[in-house]
């Protein structure tokens, strides 16, 4: 073991820390997650295992043979044809070529596809094009092809949408008006989500990914939960993955309940029970990254939350391990040393069923 360990900060900047500092950051990180989520800290053995992952002097690490898990994604193959905003590399190729390359070159276990905007609202007017695209791609792929979209309730508020904007109403003290606007927008969002997923089901869609759920708070979460429950009735042969946007459901409404549970303030181990209740098949927790803290601190927090979520879950758990969540730096090109360490830690210590 080397004296100093090369790692990174939450914004991706490379830092060299002493072994004692890394151990201290890991400990404080797990304590922070335990305190916020009211869940157990990592055990001494798990803390040691996490330290060993950071102390490994190899640039890239990996899980042990036999510990491999399933990968699902939020349209990762589209990064081959996308641009900077999505970490894309702008290759002049089609959806078909990118999906098949992802299946046969990258050897992904599943492949995700969606509208390039990836939000729900823009899909509705072009649903026939999306149906055709999915159908064509699904005839060619062998791996499960999962259509993904973000509920993104924010797009339903003025000036982008039809509903009064809570971000303007709340500072003006119009609390009840802000709540009414969110409730009305959530109802429209739920209808749109069901419309899109039901249409894709009609062309043989095998999986649908509700991605970055609750990005606009508890009303956003409510719309997704209601849509999934309805879809499980009308599209029972289509798997549904529910991936979150952050570790904590923001209470922008504050009083929304679902099945008698207050949604605001839920952490991943509570969120997964909601996912199970509505019939979701895979749950994807997201744990925030603090850019001013080290990656050992951030990853310890993520593993602590994920471990508890997996422990209480009856369905597979695939932590979201993208830019700025679950121990990856908030950077559009996450360094490979951090990416592989997060994967190994979340699987071997967090016991994730997939990523």
């Amino acid at each position: 073991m080397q004296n100093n360990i090369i790692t990174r900060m939450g914004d991706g900047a490379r830092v060299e820390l002493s072994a004692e500092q890394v151990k201290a950051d890991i400990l404080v990180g797990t304590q922070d997650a335990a305190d916020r989520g009211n869940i157990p800290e990592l055990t001494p053995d798990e803390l040691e295992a996490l330290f060993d992952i950071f102390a490994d002097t190899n640039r890239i690490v990996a899980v042990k043979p036999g510990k491999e898990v399933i990968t699902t994604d939020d349209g990762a193959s589209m990064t081959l044809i996308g641009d900077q905003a999505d970490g894309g590399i702008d290759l002049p190729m089609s959806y078909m070529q990118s999906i098949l390359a992802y299946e046969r070159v990258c050897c992904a276990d599943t492949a995700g596809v969606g509208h390039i905007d990836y939000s729900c609202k823009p899909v509705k007017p072009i649903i026939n094009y999306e149906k055709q695209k999915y159908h064509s791609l699904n005839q060619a792929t062998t791996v499960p092809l999962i259509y993904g979209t973000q509920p993104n309730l924010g797009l339903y508020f003025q000036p982008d949408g039809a509903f009064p904007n809570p971000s303007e109403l709340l500072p003006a003290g119009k609390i009840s008006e802000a709540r009414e606007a969110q409730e009305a927008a959530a109802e429209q969002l739920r209808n749109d989500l069901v419309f899109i997923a039901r249409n894709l089901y009609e062309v043989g869609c095998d999986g649908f990914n509700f991605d970055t759920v609750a990005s606009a708070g508890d009303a956003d979460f409510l719309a997704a939960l209601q849509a999934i429950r309805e879809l499980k009735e009308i599209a029972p042969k289509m798997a549904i993955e529910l991936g979150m946007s952050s570790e904590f459901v923001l209470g922008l409404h504050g009083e929304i309940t679902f099945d008698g549970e207050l949604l605001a303030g839920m952490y991943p181990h509570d969120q997964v029970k909601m996912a199970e209740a509505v019939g979701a098949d895979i749950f994807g927790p997201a744990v925030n990254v603090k850019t001013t803290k080290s990656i050992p601190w951030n990853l310890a927090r993520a593993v602590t939350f994920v471990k508890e979520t997996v422990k209480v879950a009856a369905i597979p758990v695939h932590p979201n391990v993208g830019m700025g969540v679950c121990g990856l730096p908030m950077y559009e090109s996450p360094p490979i040393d951090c990416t592989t360490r997060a994967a190994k830690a979340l699987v071997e210590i967090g016991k994730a069923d997939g990523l």
Partner: protein
Amino acid sequence: MSVAHIMAAGMGGIRTAGDLVAWMQLTQRMKITEAKEYVARKLGISVMDLTDEEVMHQVRQDLDIATLPMVADGSSGILAKCRIAELLDIELNSVNRFKSKLKL
């Protein structure tokens, strides 16, 4: 980033048995251990063999369920999925739709 995750922790897709285990998670809500054991039983191999390219290439070729490298005249796409659904004893929406159109 996605490729790094695949290399660090993924099962390997159709290069090994990744898609098969994924189908069990998606259609039966199986956790990773249960899904691997189920697929291994169906293939008649050990769980460790599921991610062994040297084993899985031949298994997939024999079952004709898509391999990497691709084999001329081998099944892939919806045809492979029809065979996989039967092999794993599961229902897939895409396969149901495809078969309903064939009406053979």
